[in-house]
């Protein structure tokens, strides 16, 4: 218990330090935040364009899919703000900077996550929240206290599931020698699939996105539960389980990688 409390305390300290470092470069923040927002906004524009031609996709309306996309976008923002450093693991290893992390009496995982604070992540969090709020006005849901509590729990689980997935992808850096980690890019790109109902993708992809790289549990399944989708809504209830499994697997993989790490070039 004390270890967890200490870890959280350390995380907050490192986070504040990283935040201050980033905010020193005002011009960079002013460029990066709107730019990243623009990229996310394009996703909503795409939905708008597609739904000018169709009333529904696989039984989902535009407002419902806006929420699905918003989940992808918001969780990307959250992981960006709180764990941007996981993109840098291969780079740190390659340039020997990872060794410096290992010499400190602090969890290497924590340090890696906070190598950088992704301020640009606040943009999609804000935009996504606004888009969800606006979309919910068009969707009838019976908001009981139980449903609200579950929705919040599912939201947090989705964010953790994403963090776990990205962290596991990042940890593969321990098995790769190059400064760029192709795995993390490919895994990140595969999140695009989860912007739409997984049923449109056929069985193989559906399976992959549910059981292998669980992007389905970052957006589609939890949102399906909140909207009371009869066919797949119940799967959404497994999101907390998937979150724990994903993060647990990622932490285990990271530890395994750390164990076999033999300094730059190893």
């Amino acid at each position, binding site marked *: 218990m004390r270890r967890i409390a200490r870890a959280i305390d350390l995380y907050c300290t490192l986070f504040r330090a990283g935040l201050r470092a980033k905010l020193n*470069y005002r*011009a*960079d923040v*002013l*460029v*990066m935040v*709107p*730019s*990243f927002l*623009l*990229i996310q*906004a*394009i996703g909503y*524009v*795409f939905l*708008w*364009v*597609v739904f*000018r*031609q*169709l009333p529904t*996709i*696989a039984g989902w309306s535009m407002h419902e899919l806006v929420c699905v996309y918003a989940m992808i976008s918001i969780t990307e923002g959250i992981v960006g703000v709180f764990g941007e450093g996981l993109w840098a693991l291969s780079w740190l290893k390659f340039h020997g900077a990872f060794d410096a992390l290992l010499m400190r009496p602090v969890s290497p995982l924590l340090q890696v996550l906070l190598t950088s604070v992704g301020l*640009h992540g606040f943009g999609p969090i804000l935009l996504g929240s606004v888009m969800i709020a606006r979309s919910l006005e068009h969707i009838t849901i019976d908001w009981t206290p139980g449903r609200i509590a579950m929705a919040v729990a599912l939201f947090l689980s989705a964010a953790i599931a994403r963090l776990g997935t990205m962290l596991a992808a990042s940890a593969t850096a321990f098995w790769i020698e*190059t400064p*760029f980690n*192709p795995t993390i*890019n*490919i895994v*990140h*790109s*595969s999140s*695009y*699939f989860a*912007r*739409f109902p997984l049923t*449109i*993708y*056929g069985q193989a992809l559906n399976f992959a996105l549910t059981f292998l790289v669980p992007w389905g549990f970052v957006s589609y399944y939890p949102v399906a539960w909140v909207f009371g989708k009869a066919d797949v809504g119940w799967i959404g209830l497994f999101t907390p389980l998937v979150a724990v499994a994903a993060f647990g697997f990622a932490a285990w993989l990271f530890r395994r990688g750390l164990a076999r790490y033999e300094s730059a070039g190893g």
Partner: protein
Amino acid sequence: MYSPAKYIALGSATFQQRLAQRRVFYMTLAGQMMGLLSLYFVWKVLFSGRGGVMGFSWPQMQTYLLLTFCANAVLGFHSELMMSARILDGSIAIDLLKPLDYQTARFTEIVATAVIEGACAVAVAVLAGWALGCPLAPADLAHGLFAIVSFALGVWIKFGVVYIAGLACFWTTNGWGISWAQMAISQLFSGALAPLPLLPGWLATLASWLPFQGMIYTPVMIFLGQFDVAASLRAIAFQIAWGFGLWFLARACGSVMMRRVTIHGG
């Protein structure tokens, strides 16, 4: 300053260098293939049960997607970052000392890289087209030839856009942010997101005046035979006009930026 031999030598050296550094490019290509695959399924849903959408048949839309993939692969994110990096890491100081025009030299490098990027992307697209039962073939020989010219002009226009955007790196160290903003705007107005006729009226009108359509929409429409010969020639003339326009705008902006660098002592 403008003897072709120097630039041919630069291009040849760049070609060989890029050929030796294929890995990062393959990784980007893999990520883009993910994006393409997810879009493919969405459009498939849109086109299912209908003869066509806004004058496009399903085979034409599939071809549109494959060619968009090819066009996006050329002068991609990585090439863009490499151009910004020269400004950000200061190697532009050495570049400016060389007996080469800075802008033309960068363009030469881009063209040399584009040959490799284009060849790989086209190979993937041809295979994908064959696998989908929609072989990549132009409407007829004339349109095919015009399309090749148009695609080449598209690369020239894309260079102009990327180069001008990259000049912002004289103000901010955030090359990523600049790239994201440029990519978002280009994606929308080039027709990468959706064929321009599918955009809402006012957006489509705006797009028809901007240079971005020359990057993807124009060459693909020519390839598909959606533009007749007269329309194709008009479109190519528009591309040439914008190609020159952007080239000289880039020169103007570039010289302003370079003077700033000199005046402020680097």
